[in-house]
């Protein structure tokens, strides 16, 4: 897992590569000030950190079957003596691991 410092270095390189960046204020297109660039690096680094630390939550939410589908799995598991629902949940968790 990358540290926040490492992610900040990565974000700095990305913002440097993206220069020049502009903002639109009062109908004018102005280049970022040094403070704007510094804030863009901070925002990007923090976003990378949040994605690294908490991105698995959103990824799991998207990967889980709907409640209706999961209930259907549980019904047929009970009827057929299978383990489909548990395997589905385990697969989603394993595909999107929580950071150590």
């Amino acid at each position, binding site marked *: 897992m990358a540290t926040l410092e490492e992610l900040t270095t990565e974000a700095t390189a*990305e913002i440097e590569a*993206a220069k020049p*960046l*502009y*903002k*639109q*204020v*009062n*109908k004018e*297109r102005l280049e*970022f000030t040094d403070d*704007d660039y510094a*804030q*863009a690096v*901070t*925002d*990007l680094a*923090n*976003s990378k950190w*949040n994605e690294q630390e908490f991105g698995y939550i*959103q990824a799991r*939410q*998207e990967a*889980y*079957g*709907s*409640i209706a589908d999961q209930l259907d799995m549980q019904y047929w598991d009970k009827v057929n003596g299978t383990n489909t629902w548990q395997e589905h949940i385990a697969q989603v968790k394993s595909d999107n691991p929580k950071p150590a």
Partner: protein
Amino acid sequence: MAGSLIKIDEEIVTSAVASVELGGTDWDSSYDVYQLVISNMEMSLNNAQIRLKFLAGGTPQSTSNYDEASKVLVSNTTFANNSLPNYSAFVITYVGASTDTNARFNSNHFLFNMNNASEYSFMTQETSAFKNGAVLEGKQGGGVYTVAEAHNGVEITALGGNVTAGTFTLYGLKK
């Protein structure tokens, strides 16, 4: 009722910019409630987060005091609850925007308590994003910036990318 929505500021983006600011020197503090409308926003980067910050004294506020909660409605998968406490901005997309030809981001926000220096400022959000692979994402929720200070505008940014087109309009709701 005619004339009850008063346009305060508008920015029309036609060349790529990383951020757009509304209000600031154009801010009119005579309203209790404001409406922000983002129309047909296009992005330069797939899955770029669209973020919203409040301005104080004309400067975007970036402290980790933005709390947000919303329901995300997606056309190709399970709906999700989205909770983002103590962020440095409101993240008004869920997965992000898209560079697909027909991809657009549209949203409507109401802003409350902006002029009150002793209370927090709030916003509501109602978004509609047409994204990669013809997926529609809708988001409904609200947020609060937990710093008691007056605010005089908003900044919309495309994290890690650019806004390539769009109309950003700020209205005051006449009392």
